[in-house]
């Protein structure tokens, strides 16, 4: 337990380190949804600053921040999905650099195209699968950190990660990525 509450100054000091990492998670999570990753990252940090007196030090500050950002993003995605259903909105606006895998056919995909295909395939996964892959493969978080954030056993994190990667594989193949291709 922390003897003293988390101060604004402490958060200011950690912000440059945390902000890019949280931004990457948010961007991976909302890719293709039409939601603005910068807005959502800011929303997450506003909550972190507002709720800082609730931080009790039982987890690392980064894990605590990540949990708040995760919940903010999942709430936004749920609201977004609901709004689309209610107002019959069609496809979400896509990122300006979004790439359609079908356009390239069997041509070798260059580095940038592969990144975009990967983002698109991730976007097609369920939020749960996308999040666990983002935490491990994109952010490089440890299994213990993921287990703490998701409130799961470390072994469960690994088996879910494997299943999520299998689904990612299926998506990539359905998008024209040959399993054996570079």
């Amino acid at each position, binding site marked *: 337990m922390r003897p003293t509450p988390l101060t*604004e100054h402490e958060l200011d000091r950690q*912000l*440059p380190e945390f*902000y*890019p990492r949280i*931004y*990457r998670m948010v*961007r*991976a999570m909302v890719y293709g949804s039409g939601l603005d990753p*910068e807005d959502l*990252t*800011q929303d997450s*940090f*506003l909550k972190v*600053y*507002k709720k800082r*007196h609730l931080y009790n030090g039982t987890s690392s500050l980064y894990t605590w921040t990540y949990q708040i950002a995760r919940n903010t993003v999942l709430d936004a995605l749920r609201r977004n999905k609901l709004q689309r259903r209610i107002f019959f909105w069609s496809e979400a606006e896509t990122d300006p650099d979004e790439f359609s895998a079908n356009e390239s056919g069997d041509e070798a*995909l260059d*580095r940038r195209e*592969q*990144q975009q*295909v*990967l*983002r698109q395939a991730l976007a097609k996964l369920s939020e749960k699968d996308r999040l666990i892959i983002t935490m491990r*493969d*994109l*952010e*490089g978080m440890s299994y213990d950190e993921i287990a703490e954030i998701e409130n799961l056993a470390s*072994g*469960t994190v*690994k*088996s879910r*990660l*494997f*299943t999520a*990667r*299998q689904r990612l*594989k299926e998506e*990539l193949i359905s998008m024209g*990525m040959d*399993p*054996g*291709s*570079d």
Partner: protein
Amino acid sequence: MKPNSKQISNRLREQLVDARDSLLTDDELEQLERDVKAHDPQLWKDHLWMVEQAQIGVLSRFSDLREEQPAKGAIGRFHSRRQAEGGTQADLEFLVWSWFRRYVLTVGLVLIVLLTGWQMTSTDEPAGDIRDQMTRILGGEQEQIPELDHWLYEDL
């Protein structure tokens, strides 16, 4: 208790993740390969695909995504927004509200419960008192208001 098929599958998945992270010895890996192929050969194929793609294929692009940075000046924009949305004022409001919720509402609820209890015990008066009061208020004699008696006492 003997593990069921799903439990075995989950355990193998866990170990395959360890294998991808190169945490197994050669012997352990060979044993795992045998176990996985005996249980579900597709799992092993998926594992090999994941390992290959993580090294030279599309999954290796995660390292590029990891390098990605937010737009320039993002942190500055965050601080501006924080200031614009109240900053310390919003923090203060939040603290006052949480203090209010914790203490004022709790004390209020306790008071309501106590007062209600007190009122219930103190209004336990004989029916005759109420009758006298109603008579005084309406200014009539008891015998002049039999209809009042009727509705006033029918449930007592």
